[in-house]
């Protein structure tokens, strides 16, 4: 990959994360958005779309609760998509790169959040001196640190590591790759499982089977059809029933 394409991919990754700091939480760093975006930048949107959508299903349950640091899905999907597009290794190549990256890269966010603790004391100092500009400056320095914590690792990994990663993914023997493909097909189950853990209310579980049965027996319905039925049903449910759960 050329310097500039690496630079732009890293820049987009950093900005996709920076919006979580400065624009609320628009979810632009999710794989479903970042995958196609990186694919588009590298000239292969359809691969990006497939990789992004698959990673989205895998990381569906990954979220930050409280102040915790979740799996780093942004760097993972950027690297995964970039390697997949440049090496042509498909979804498997993306998975090989993205899953470990998501775990390792979460330490960068951890680092940024630790470093920014020092800025809090700068803010205290400027608050005492009644200097609103100083306070704003400290806050923006914090945002810059957060941006760099995503930009730099992505840039370094792609610029110096992409060939190594690519040769690694192509060097994996066929039957191990077949195993990875198998695990890849199963990985969405992990995302759904994590999600069910937080969704599941024993009394409401029948709805899970209703959703499953509709989509399984009538393939044309798809997830979209079930969702539309669901929204209509839920509105009826709220306007007629009383809540059965209390948690």
């Amino acid at each position, binding site marked *: 990959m050329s310097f500039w394409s690496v630079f732009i991919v890293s820049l987009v990754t950093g900005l996709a994360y920076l919006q979580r*700091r400065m624009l*609320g*939480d*628009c*979810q632009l760093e999710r794989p*479903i958005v970042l995958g*196609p*975006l990186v694919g588009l930048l590298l000239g292969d949107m359809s691969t990006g*779309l497939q990789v*992004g*959508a698959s990673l*989205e*299903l895998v990381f569906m*349950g990954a979220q930050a*609760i409280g*102040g915790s640091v979740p799996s780093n899905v942004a760097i993972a999907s950027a690297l995964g998509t970039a390697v997949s597009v440049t090496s042509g290794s498909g979804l498997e190549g993306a998975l090989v790169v993205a899953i470990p990256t998501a775990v390792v890269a979460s330490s960068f966010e951890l680092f*940024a959040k630790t*470093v920014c*603790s020092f800025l*809090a004391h700068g803010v*205290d100092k400027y*608050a005492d001196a*009644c200097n*609103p500009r100083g306070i*704003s400056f400290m*806050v*923006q320095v914090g*945002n810059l640190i*957060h941006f760099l914590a995503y930009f730099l690792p992505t840039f370094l990994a792609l610029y110096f590591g992409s060939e190594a990663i690519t040769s690694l993914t192509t060097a994996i023997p066929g*039957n191990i790759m*077949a195993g990875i493909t198998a695990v890849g*097909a*199963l990985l*969405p*189950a992990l995302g759904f*499982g*994590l*999600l069910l853990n*937080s*969704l*599941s209310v*024993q009394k409401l*579980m029948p709805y*899970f089977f*209703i*959703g499953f049965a509709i*989509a*399984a027996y009538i*393939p044309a*319905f*798809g*997830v*979209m059809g*079930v969702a539309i039925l669901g929204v209509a*049903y*839920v*509105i009826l*449910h*709220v306007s007629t029933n009383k809540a059965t*759960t209390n948690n």
Partner: protein
Amino acid sequence: MSETNTTVSTSKIDKKELNRLFLRSNAIQSAFNFERMQGLGFIWGILPLLNKLYPDKEDRVAAYKRHSGYFNTHPWLVGIIFGIVASMEERKAQGEEMDEENIQAVKGALMGPLAGLGDSLFFSTYRPIVAGICASLALSGVSFAPILFVVLINVVHFGAQWWGVHNGYKLADRFLEELEGMQIQKWMEAATILGLLVVGALVATAMNLTTPLTYVVGDAQVVLQDMFNKILPRMLPLVKEFRKSPKTPCPSCWALLSSASFWAFSEFFKQGYFMGEGDIGLYPLPRELWRPL
């Protein structure tokens, strides 16, 4: 709904000011750190308002310090707290009886419940529903799926923030009472139902788990997957999902374990350990990806 709390005639906070507060409230996670969490984002968000309300240096310094401490809530619902705090600060600036502790207490009392509400309603339910729909659209080649995702997510995101700032300001300390009237519990249950329906549909569509296992009885060849399809289409993904369903403590462990065992079995079959007559193999692969070695 109620104008009794705000004395409109002397109000320094107009619609324009509230809209600015809304814009700034979105930067709540700025300079996020482990010591103050969203504390720095909060002071940055409310900074211009404090400057406007407190011309005196002494009041200003006190206000800065009041709002740069520890703070953490859900980024989509923080608008409510900004609105309420704006209203309280305004009354304090106008000389009403309003303790500093009172403002702190309201912030502290609201951030926990709103964080819980936002996490369960938005991050555990709404986002996965939208993500699931859009991911399955994307997998079937619809290229505007990511755009649809961003739009659906952010209509709710910015809508909640805008609504929160304006209504939080208007209702101020009566906000919690009003919230109870809105039957949040019922809506949360409704969201859970929708979430379960969609995840059920996702298991049926997005998981590609079939078996190429066939066996020969006499002259007849029996394809196991065809039999499964007759009993219950997409049965294997369902079984797979329930290897680690609700009450299991560690779903990821189960997923990895069962994946590993599936793979190990398929390797055994390939090596011919369980080979009987005919070509028997059990591969946890999507059929189109399976190739005999």
